């Protein structure tokens, strides 16, 4: 009976946490679409959406409503099951990777601790890699199932791009994991406690600048975002993998991209920019109640993530799209060797320091 009640409270706690995270990431993804249009407008000396509500803030709602109201078209010669599976998979995988992210420090109360992480698995980084590489199946299946040669080409590109850049991404992370000695997201973030430790910056960015550079370039590629948006390349492939999609299935694809962007921003800030850690957090921990301390941590993490989202948009509206051969050359001939060198140097330095 005791075990049952214990697990029930745990289940309730996790369900609440999951709902908050899902709602939060959906909300942030929604407003990312608005922010993207505003950022684009600002960079092109325009105004951007400003009609729906103050500053156009209701624009995402209007867009969503429009997508819901559109006619649902499934091409006659498509594989119907896979056609529906594609966007669902894209959305599912986009939402799943947020499960291992530590959103803030544990809330320690007299009744026990509440963890702000859905699952602290000891292979968190691996889990993220698995989910991210599954995410490309959503694009591939949807593209193949629409029975359209442009979509097929796009699916092909998305798959080869994902495979090429996952390698460099993984190798650049191995260096990080070697330093931290753990694959758990929680431990990686806790390893970057505060801002200054043992006479050096504690954030991984300052220990692995090259690794960070490789990782962020690869996340651009994994997200299928400009300058690596080969998969949806409007000027060559019409709309790429979502050419044949309409209504909310198209909406799912577009939305999954923004959720992915949010999640990868959070991962970037967790792995390299200290996650919920900030300068002077020990002082804050002593002076504020634990719940507030955790919430400040969440706020700091979200702030960093929003910074990264803005950076992603900034890059998108600055750089032209890479050509396909340039993309492959960059991935295989530059990033992978660089990541390998980075790994070797990190290993050598660790050995030298431990001697």
């Amino acid at each position, binding site marked *: 009976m005791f075990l049952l009640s214990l697990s029930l409270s745990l289940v309730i706690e996790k369900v609440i946490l999951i709902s908050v995270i899902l709602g939060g990431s959906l909300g942030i993804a929604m407003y990312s679409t608005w922010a993207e249009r505003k950022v684009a407008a*600002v*960079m092109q*000396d325009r*105004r951007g959406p*400003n009609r729906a509500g103050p500053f156009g803030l209701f624009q995402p709602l209007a867009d969503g409503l429009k997508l819901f109201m559109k006619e649902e078209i499934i091409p006659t010669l498509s594989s119907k099951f896979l056609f529906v599976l594609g966007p669902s998979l894209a959305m599912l995988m986009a939402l799943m990777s947020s499960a291992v992210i530590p959103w803030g420090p544990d809330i320690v109360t007299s009744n026990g601790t509440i963890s702000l992480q859905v699952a602290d698995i000891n292979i968190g980084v691996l889990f993220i890699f698995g989910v991210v590489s599954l995410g490309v199946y959503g694009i591939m299946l949807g593209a193949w199932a629409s029975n359209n040669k442009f979509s097929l080409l796009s699916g092909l590109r998305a798959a080869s791009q994902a495979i090429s850049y996952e390698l460099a991404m993984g190798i650049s992370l191995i260096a990080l994991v070697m330093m931290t000695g753990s694959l758990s997201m929680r431990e990686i973030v806790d390893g970057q406690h505060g801002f200054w430790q043992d006479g050096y910056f504690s954030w991984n960015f300052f220990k692995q600048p090259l690794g960070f550079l490789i990782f962020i370039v690869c996340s651009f590629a994994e997200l299928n975002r400009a300058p690596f948006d080969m998969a949806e390349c409007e000027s060559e492939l019409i709309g790429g993998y979502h050419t044949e999609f309409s209504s909310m299935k198209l909406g799912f694809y577009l939305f999954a991209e923004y959720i992915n962007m949010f999640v990868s921003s959070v991962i970037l800030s967790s792995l390299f920019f200290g996650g919920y850690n900030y300068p002077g957090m020990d002082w804050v921990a002593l002076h504020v109640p634990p719940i507030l301390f955790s919430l400040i941590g969440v706020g700091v993490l979200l702030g960093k993530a929003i910074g990264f989202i803005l950076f992603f948009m*900034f*890059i998108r509206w*600055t750089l032209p799209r890479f050509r396909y051969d340039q993309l492959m050359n*960059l991935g295989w001939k530059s990033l992978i060797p660089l990541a390998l060198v980075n790994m070797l140097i990190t290993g050598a330095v660790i050995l030298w320091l431990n001697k």
Partner: protein
Amino acid sequence: MSHTISTRAKQVDRRPMTFMESLYIPAILKGLRITLGHIFKKKATINYPEVQRPFSSTFRGLHILNRDEEGRERCTACGLCALSCPAEAITMESAERKPGEEMLYREEKYAANYEINMLRCIFCGLCEEACPKDAIYLTQTFAPSNFDRKGFIYKKDDLLIPFPAETTQKIETK
């Protein structure tokens, strides 16, 4: 040697990238600086329905049919505007003024129907120049959009400037 007709034509540089170029990062930073600069630039767009750009003083827009000081129609349906119109956008039918209509029409003859097809009109202003009675003028507005071709054929009611309020009262008291 390549032969070019235009002096502005530029040969595309197809040399392989140098090492610095293949790093991409200097070029990316340069690009980011440019876009960053645009954040602080003045916006080229105005909030259209609330803010409107002024037309030039010589702008030729939608036509009006004028009235004289006493509120009588000036047009005598002479047809000079239709004759001068290079786009053949103007048609009219004349009618004779009847006794008792002196406060409505200035001369003995007036336009019973007057139509301008705004889809044909090229807003050249020749009708305005041709009119001997100062009856037709081009204003500073333009034809609003319409769902129908018919909606662009402006009848006399659409063109005639409204009756001045004081003259309406004068006529009513008479």
